[in-house]
């Protein structure tokens, strides 16, 4: 889908929300839902940042780290990919305090979702690095660069372009799994909607708004990543399209 179509959808979704908000049966719920959405966004953004950091670190450790580091990274990736985000949330929030490690719910939410998605992300980063042509490494060695210089200046900038679309998918996955955080006492968008629904039974307006708000958020991610991809690949393929 072209970036224009996506922007069109985003504008349409926002317009529908605006239109519905003119009716009191809808506008009644909007402030509460937006409050929940704010928490959802905070968790999603911080979790995504953590996921990228962990994804890059784990990928580099697995590819180029010394044996213990490589081993540690593999254990991390396998544990967080092999168990569900829900189990990880519960572990960090209910089990770790039994061993004396107590964290507030918000920190746990960001940690669990960020670490979970970072484990998938490390495979994305690893694959993109390995996909860079071997000739690029060889040219860098012939220019006597250090390993760190090669990675930073030559390999990662080229791998970056290939990483953007799969990271976009992961960010959307992360956004959707924020709905799990209600299970550790946080009042995110999904939980706020359930609360309001239980007390008012106005199912249609509440869940119509919830659907639209999630859609706006995921469209924003998709558009942002598309934009990034276009910018990044322009540098790589200048003139190639002509």
């Amino acid at each position: 889908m072209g970036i224009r179509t996506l922007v069109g959808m985003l504008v349409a979704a926002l317009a529908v929300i605006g239109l519905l908000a003119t009716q009191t049966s809808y506008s009644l719920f909007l402030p509460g839902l937006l409050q929940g959405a704010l928490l959802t966004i905070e968790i999603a953004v911080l979790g995504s940042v953590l996921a990228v950091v962990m994804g890059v670190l784990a990928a580099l450790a697995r590819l180029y780290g010394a044996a213990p580091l490589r081993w540690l990274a593999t254990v991390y990736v396998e544990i967080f990919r092999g168990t569900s985000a829900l189990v990880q949330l519960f572990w960090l929030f209910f089990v770790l305090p039994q061993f004396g490690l107590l964290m507030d719910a918000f920190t746990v939410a960001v940690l669990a979702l960020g670490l979970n998605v970072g484990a998938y992300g490390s495979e994305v980063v690893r694959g993109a690095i390995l996909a860079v042509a071997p000739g690029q490494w060889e040219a860098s060695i012939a220019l006597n660069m250090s390993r760190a210089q090669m990675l930073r200046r030559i390999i990662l900038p080229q791998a970056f372009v290939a990483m953007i679309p799969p990271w976009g998918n992961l960010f959307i996955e992360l956004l959707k799994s924020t709905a799990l955080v209600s299970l550790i006492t946080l009042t995110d968008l999904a939980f706020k909607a359930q609360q309001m629904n239980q007390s008012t039974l106005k199912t249609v307006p509440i869940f119509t708004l919830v659907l639209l708000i999630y859609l706006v958020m995921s469209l924003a991610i998709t558009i942002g990543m598309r934009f990034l991809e276009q910018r990044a690949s322009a540098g790589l393929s200048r003139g190639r399209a002509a």
Partner: protein
Amino acid sequence: MTDQPMVRFDNVSKRYGALTVLDGLSLDIARGEKVSIIGPSGSGKTTVLRMLMTLETINDGVIWVEGEPLTHMDKGGKLVPANLGHIRRVRAKIGMVFQSFNLFPHMSAMANCIEAPMTVLGMKRADAEARAAELLDMVGLSQKKAHYPSQLSGGQQQRVAIARALAMRPKIMLFDEVTSALDPELVGEVLQVIRQIGREHDLTMLMVTHQMGFAKEFSDRVCFFYQGKICEQGPPSELFGAPKNERTRQFLRAVLEAG
């Protein structure tokens, strides 16, 4: 020190599993000497250059550069395998140009040429750019500094790659079939540049080539490789004019018929 060979392969072997690619290679190359390597496909020509560039490890022997071991280092009078720091220090003297150019696609011609001088040698941008501009001018690309590799022809890309390698001020330049990926009409411009740097720079040059005419005219010495060994070597006039070995004669006959 001056009669020290610039490069010395001392009984070097390279194996891939059970396959012996180079078998006890010994070869001295003098300072400033231009040596061409010819031979059939699979005879180990590329491997020789790649070992010298440290793109491949070696299984036996020692490679020396200006009297200093490249693949090894001295530890209490004994040679032990070199660590990365030692390798980087010695390999700073060597540059290489590849068959497939291997330019950095996300950088302009100019950026390709100043990247390593800045990050590796720590040159200031202005100095690196001045030097790169000189080199790009020399290879006839002063108009193309801002172009990206994808905007350049094969011949132009290869000339940028030559300028990029020279920007690191190597003493030894390796060329591995640098015209083989080019359309025939672009070969000449790249060979012209190699001729020119051979004249203008005090470089030791080692090139693998299928261009017999160029090897004849350009090199001081030609080495004919066959099955991982130097089968025959000598000045081009002798090797091309009066080859002694039957395999050399066969190879040259086959190449002449094909060309």
